[in-house]
């Protein structure tokens, strides 16, 4: 133990404070026996500490403080009672309804659960006649109704599929090239199943990459005979923003001679904001749809669209 260490490690202060473990305290005391300077320092420290204890408590605060506090507390109380009073004048109606609500949280929870169960039951019992509608339609033998119901069911299925696809792709977060490859892989298949076609339509509608969407159009091209594919194209066309993909979709629909696409073509043709080439293609596609004989009309091929253009 030496003076330097005692200084550096604040050992005198610690000793005075009683904060040293017994061994260290003994070592410091042993040093103090031999060192006058350190002893003097400890003595001055103790004198100082004693003096510190004699520093008087500051004089009591003035009444101004208590008055200020009281005023503040009163103001807060007033604000609180005003806030609790103004929004609910405790009308008779409130009390009437309050009687129906249980006080204890457990009962409140049970009550809300039973209300939910009741709601579900009523909903299932009275709001689900859609499934019966085709049956009714068939009993009335109106084929048109049956067809539209089937279409509705199909569309619903498509929406469901798309939802699944969105979830799926959000979960997967594949890179663009991976998505492109999976679309290109479907090109090889001669007879892709419905599920795959739905996936392709979903890709066309939702994929953020122009390349991938364009490939999806190409992959869908051999299957425009399927209602599902045409419906998907028609659904996706208004959402499409890239001119290249728009043109490809219009050409595909025109080639398939899907008259249901006519309103969309007309809208695109008149759309001021659309790309000129898109409007031109829509105009020509509309002309093709309007020609009576499908065999003679063929859409003049535009230059092949390659991905290098993007």
């Amino acid at each position, binding site marked *: 133990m030496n003076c330097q260490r005692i200084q550096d490690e*604040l050992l005198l*202060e610690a000793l005075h*404070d009683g904060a040293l473990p017994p061994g260290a305290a003994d070592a410091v005391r042993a040093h103090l026996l031999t060192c006058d300077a350190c002893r003097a320092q400890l003595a001055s420290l103790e004198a100082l500490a004693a003096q510190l204890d004699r520093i008087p408590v500051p004089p009591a605060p003035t009444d101004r403080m208590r008055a200020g*506090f009281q005023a503040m*507390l009163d103001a807060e109380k007033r604000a*609180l009672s005003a806030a609790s009073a103004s929004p609910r004048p405790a009308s008779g109606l409130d009390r009437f309804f309050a009687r129906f609500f249980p006080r204890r949280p457990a009962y409140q929870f049970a009550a809300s659960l039973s209300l939910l169960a009741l709601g579900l039951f009523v909903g299932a019992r009275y709001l689900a006649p859609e499934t019966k509608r085709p049956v009714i339609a068939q009993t009335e033998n109106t084929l048109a109704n049956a067809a539209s119901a089937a279409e509705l069911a199909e569309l619903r299925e498509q929406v469901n599929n798309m939802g699944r696809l969105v979830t799926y792709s959000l979960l997967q977060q594949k890179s663009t090239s991976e998505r492109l490859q999976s679309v290109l892989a479907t090109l090889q298949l001669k007879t892709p199943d419905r599920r795959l076609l739905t996936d392709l339509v979903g890709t066309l509608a939702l994929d953020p990459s122009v390349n991938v969407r364009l490939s999806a159009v190409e992959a869908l091209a051999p299957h425009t005979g399927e209602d599902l594919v045409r419906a998907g194209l028609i659904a996706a066309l208004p959402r499409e923003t890239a001119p290249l993909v728009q043109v490809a979709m219009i050409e595909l629909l025109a080639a398939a001679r899907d008259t249901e696409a006519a309103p969309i073509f007309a809208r695109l043709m008149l759309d001021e904001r659309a790309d000129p080439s898109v409007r031109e293609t829509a105009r020509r596609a509309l002309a093709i749809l309007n020609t009576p004989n499908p065999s003679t009309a063929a859409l003049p091929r535009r230059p092949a669209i390659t991905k290098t253009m993007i």
Partner: protein
Amino acid sequence: MLAVRAGDLDCLGELFERHHRRLYAFCAHLTGQPAAAEDIVQNVFHRILKYRHTYRDDGRFTTWMYHLARTCAADFFNKQSAAPTPVDPADLHGHASADPAPDAHASQSDDLALLRAALHRLSREHREILILSRLQNLEHREAARILDCSVGAAKVRAHRALKALRETYFALRQNPQPL
């Protein structure tokens, strides 16, 4: 405090009666200005009222109160350092503090006045720990909670502050400067 948080504001009056003197003493020692200390205590209770919803049951009320007092005091010191400080001796008469005049102190007890002067020359951190552990007789554990540090750190800080006080005090005694 739990009652206050639940909306029973009358209980805050009780808390005020129980703690305001101690809190005022802390602030008065810290700032050296009784009027400022009164303002700080008022601010602290205002904040207790305003933030009563944030009070958590896991700490002690006094710890929370001292926390608020430290932030209020920090605000006060910031404001004070931002305000122009009078430097011309002629101005100083216009800004006489409410403290008893230094010479009155001197006749009463030279050493105590010197000790106060030394205390006020310390850094705020050192002054704070000395007030808590020496003048308010809090245990290191309690002081550590107030200062948001470990008990060991509070101890070391207290020892360092004591050493700094001793050095400042003796420096002042050797070479008295106008307070």
